[in-house]
């Protein structure tokens, strides 16, 4: 358990031990702070700035079956308090990933959640089976059914309850009953609770909320879309209110389902917002680009804030904002 001795800002000399343990179903992590998939590669680069064994887990960039070039550049555009990306799931493919990335993470003792993305339902199943056999350092699967950077919106499985459920079912079948599976959902839907329920019914342990919002920037010099991929995914503090709302709605409907909250977390206070809304863990994405030490800093700030607000354990704060007075 990561516990941090806290001296509240006021400098009153009070110190507190906050228990940051995060329970996600049967998965118990020493800290609720995770990396957001695609915003930490496979950990190696960030390990220059952050001791990755001290955070909850590294969630790896979504991996596909085959190597994938990703999209052409420009792949990003800065937007007010956020950014658009259209990486297009560039990656080395599952073989290379299992050969290089997982052993490195395991050798460093980093708890790892592997994010997988399939071109079709069956590919998700096969990826899940491969990852499940990858060894003890892999503590969970995140199933990315919500990447907006695919050529066909029809392939965003998280847009419809039945397609979302189909993917989760096959993943569950392929990893067996107990292994933690988190379905990563898109906010670009009319009713996220409906999708969340479908995933849980299909066997998801919990849910990761949220992936990026579909967005677009036009370059006013070239008079063309700024991204080669035309549309991209909007992330960063700009989307935080949408993400907190999604966590709030899903926690209200499914209070016993563990949620990983993300979207625009930059500070411990932002992380605390998600936890009060109902998240059991939180992930940091775009903030790593702004501040490569963000993971450590947010974890510390969150711990201080929990202590200042009188919580001795993270667990007690989860969903606290839902309580009636």
């Amino acid at each position, binding site marked *: 358990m990561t516990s941090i001795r806290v001296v509240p800002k006021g400098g009153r000399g009070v110190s507190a031990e906050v228990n940051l343990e995060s329970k996600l179903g049967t998965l118990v992590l020493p800290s609720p702070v995770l990396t957001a998939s695609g915003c930490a590669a496979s950990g190696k680069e960030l390990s220059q700035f952050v001791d990755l064994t001290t955070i909850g887990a590294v969630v790896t960039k979504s991996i596909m079956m085959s190597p994938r*070039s990703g999209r052409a550049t*420009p792949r990003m555009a800065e937007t007010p308090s956020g950014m658009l990306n259209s990486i297009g799931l560039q990656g080395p493919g599952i073989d290379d990933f299992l050969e290089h990335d997982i052993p490195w993470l395991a050798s460093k003792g980093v708890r790892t959640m592997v994010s997988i993305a399939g071109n079709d339902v069956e590919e998700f199943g096969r990826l899940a089976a491969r990852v499940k056999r990858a060894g003890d350092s892999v503590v969970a699967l995140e199933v990315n059914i919500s990447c907006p950077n695919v050529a066909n919106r029809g392939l965003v499985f998280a847009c419809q309850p039945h397609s979302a459920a189909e993917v989760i079912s096959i993943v569950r079948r392929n990893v067996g009953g107990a292994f933690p599976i988190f379905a990563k959902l898109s906010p670009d839907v009319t009713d996220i609770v409906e999708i969340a329920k479908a995933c849980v019914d299909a066997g998801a342990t919990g849910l990761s909320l949220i992936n990026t919002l579909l967005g677009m920037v036009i370059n006013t010099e070239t008079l063309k879309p700024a991204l080669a991929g035309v549309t991209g995914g909007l992330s960063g503090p700009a989307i935080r209110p949408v993400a907190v709302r999604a966590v709030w709605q899903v926690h209200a409907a499914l209070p016993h389902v563990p949620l990983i909250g993300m979207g625009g977390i930059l500070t411990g206070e932002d992380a605390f917002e998600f936890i009060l809304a109902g998240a059991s863990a939180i992930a940091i994405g775009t903030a790593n*680009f702004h501040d490569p030490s963000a993971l450590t800093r947010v974890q510390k700030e969150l711990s201080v804030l929990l202590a200042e607000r009188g919580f001795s354990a993270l667990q007690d704060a989860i969903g606290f904002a839902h309580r009636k007075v």
Partner: protein
Amino acid sequence: MNFQPLQVEGELLSNRRVGAYHLITIVVPGIPERIRPGNFVALSVGGESTSTLLRRSFSVYQAQERGLYGGTLELVISAHGAGTRWLAALAPHQMINVVGPLGRPFPLPKDPVHALLVGGGYGSAPLFMLADALRQRGCRVDMALGAASADRLFGTLEARRVTNALSIATDDGSLGVQGRVTDAARSILERANIDVIYACGPMPMLSALTTLGGEFGVMVQCAVEESMACGIGICMTCVLPVRGNDDVVRMSRSCVDGPVFAGDRVLWESIGSVPEETLGAPKASEH
């Protein structure tokens, strides 16, 4: 070899206009002694409640290990967008968060070769530390600097000090010969026995120099400038198609696999697209 990057809260020491640019000096203990020529640093911009979260990358012009105030970095800023305008307006004592050193530096030759350094606009910035390093190794250093106009050249006086010969070209002829820096480079290649070219500047210049190098059988080491969101290798936005030693084309990250690439490894014409031969390129049948 490469030093591990640090993240340091820097303090602005000075900020002065030099032609069309701003030359800023930042006190950043720890970073200067780790800088190799061609490394860059990434600065956060906009202050406490900024809406521009992504870091801005800059080549290092000078790195002073020990100054009156501790180690300093000098950077050349061309102000145009929100972030560079903010940096150009900084006043002494303001704080700037700096991450560096980043990227692979220019590879240095073992032998005392004859090198040509080519800089376009503020692309000259990293060439001065490079020239120093080369001369310390006994190399002969020629330099060609080019820009649209005289005010967009950087370091022409300094260049005389650190090089054996200097050519200057401007599009409007306001300094040096009128014309492009690649033409100046061609003249040098024609009259001198250049062993290696080091270049930093706009992509079309790097591409043209690579062709030119090929013509003369000279290796061109290019420091590229791709749009970067993180600068540390975790976002995959800064890629360009590069042929590896295994002959496979990959979308390589210019922030960690570069910014310096051997010119003949970069598929210059394909920047902005994914060449079909790229590993994992989309097939017509796929989405």
